[in-house]
């Protein structure tokens, strides 16, 4: 039975820009002690940082200076002894108050945390399945697609133990991104990889990040890696950790491998290295004193 035809209206409209990017982090006066009583050690000393939504923010510094502490506090693995952290304007954690563990801030671990007893596909689909946001069949299909998009087609049925570390790292990043996190927390994820695999990973990460629209907080020792990936690079002091200097990497995205030879890149690397080196010497002296 034919009735009057349906009227279709165009819905073209501009959406507020801020909605598009998520993951702005504000760390104010973060303080953390390790140990207790007389042997208490101040690891982070009133450190303040501002991470803009949608950027790749890289933190470099000598080992043991407390960079991982900040990341762990954001992720909710431990609490701060002082200071606050806000995410997208909302309070994430305060003093003595641990942030809730959640999939809006997903960590990619240094030594890899792919579940060895699940296939790659099951690993990637894990987040949506346990949260119930997708049905199992849908989650697996979406996982398969995201893997294919990341260039990892064919690995779905393998177990992590059977694959190379480069593949494992990429899978872990894809697994994190399945949940569309506001913040991707990467704790020296490429540390254990060889130089060739690392450069592949860098480009993969940049490509993936461009699509995700969230923020990435990346911790590393490698200054070249930091400048190549980061929109801004923060250099931390040796223990106790404080913000020493923030460098703006004004090389536009998308970045190709070829910028590594450009003058601007090399200048930035040299500048960052000298700042880091200063702190590294201090840390070394400290370590020697403690034997």
């Amino acid at each position: 039975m034919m009735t009057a035809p349906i009227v279709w209206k165009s819905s073209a409209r501009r959406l507020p820009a801020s909605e598009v990017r998520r993951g702005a982090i504000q760390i104010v006066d973060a303080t953390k002690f390790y140990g207790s009583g007389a042997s208490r050690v101040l690891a982070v000393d009133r450190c303040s940082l501002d991470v803009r939504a949608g950027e790749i923010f890289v933190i470099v510094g000598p080992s043991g200076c407390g960079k991982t502490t900040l990341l762990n506090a954001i992720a909710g693995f431990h609490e701060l002894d002082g200071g606050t952290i806000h995410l997208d304007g909302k309070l994430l954690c305060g003093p003595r108050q641990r942030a809730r563990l959640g999939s809006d801030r997903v960590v990619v671990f240094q030594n890899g945390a792919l579940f060895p007893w699940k296939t790659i596909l099951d690993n990637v689909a894990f987040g949506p399945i346990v949260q119930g946001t997708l049905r199992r069949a849908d989650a697996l299909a979406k996982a398969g697609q995201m893997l294919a998009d990341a260039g990892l087609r064919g690995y779905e049925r393998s177990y992590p133990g059977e694959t190379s570390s480069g593949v494992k790292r990429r899978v872990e990043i894809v697994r994190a991104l399945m949940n569309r996190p506001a913040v991707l927390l990467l704790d020296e994820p490429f540390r254990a990889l060889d130089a060739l695999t690392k450069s592949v990973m860098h480009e993969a990460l940049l490509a993936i990040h461009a699509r995700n629209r969230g923020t990435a907080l990346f911790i590393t020792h490698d200054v070249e890696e930091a400048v190549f990936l980061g929109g801004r690079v923060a250099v931390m002091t040796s223990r106790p950790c404080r913000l020493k200097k923030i460098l703006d990497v004004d090389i536009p995205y998308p970045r190709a491998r070829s910028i590594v030879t450009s003058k601007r890149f090399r200048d930035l690397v040299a500048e960052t290295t000298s700042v880091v080196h200063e702190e590294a010497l201090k840390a070394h002296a400290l370590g020697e004193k403690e034997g």
Partner: protein
Amino acid sequence: MVAHATATDAVGRASKLVWPQRPRAWSAGRAQRRAVVAYVVALLIWQLGSTSPRWLGYPLPWISHVPTPGSVAVAWARLVSDPGYWRSWGASFVRVLVGFSAAVVTGVPLGLLMALSRPVRAVVFPVFELLRPIPPLAWVPAAIIFWPTQELSIDFVIFIGAFYTMVLNALGGADGIDPRLIQVARSMGASRWNIFHRLVLRAVVPSILVGMEVGIGITWEVVVAAEMISGGGSGTSTASGGGLGFFIWNSYVGGSYPQIVVGMASIGIAGFLSSAALRLAAARFTRWTAAR
């Protein structure tokens, strides 16, 4: 090292992160408090269960047959002043010592030999694996037939029990040595004896010590069983049995049930003491070798 401490602190124990956090103010000593609660509850269940005919009116299945805590305490108080009880302790301990030492002294060299020499391993290990599944206690009758005295047959069975463990642990420890270490030592000009003496023995000691802890547990199991079987279960009523296992069996046969529980607890304590003594000796030994 601070870096290590950071990672460990930050990541924390698995159990605490699976289950939600609790305020940490009163957690010190919490484990001990809960243990006390657990013991009290267990004691209560024992008391109520064993006396259930009296207060409940009808006996609860199984637990009502257990002697009451009170009767056990009374029996134990009486036994403490009985020299025969302490003689049983002595008899069992002697057997444990003899059998266990024999197992260590023969088992460790054999294990090391198998690890170091391929032909020996190829010939001996299959035979070893063939005989290992036979439970030590199954050897009791054969041992009684073979050995002149009953004491020796019990010691033999005990020896068998711990022997397999010592061999496997020595073998496993030696196998686990990184072959690269041996290559490095060789390239630095160390003689075979030197390599064996400094490298292999040093690396194998932890496994051997673990094996000894496991082995002594097995030894106590076998001692008790062997004493029960040869002293009581087989029907021969020779008083030369002695030992705590025989004591338990005798208490059962004689109808003094609270003494059974006393015997069980005594053996438990004896086994615990042996393990603790071994652990202490092991700690002392490793500190001593580390210092050299």
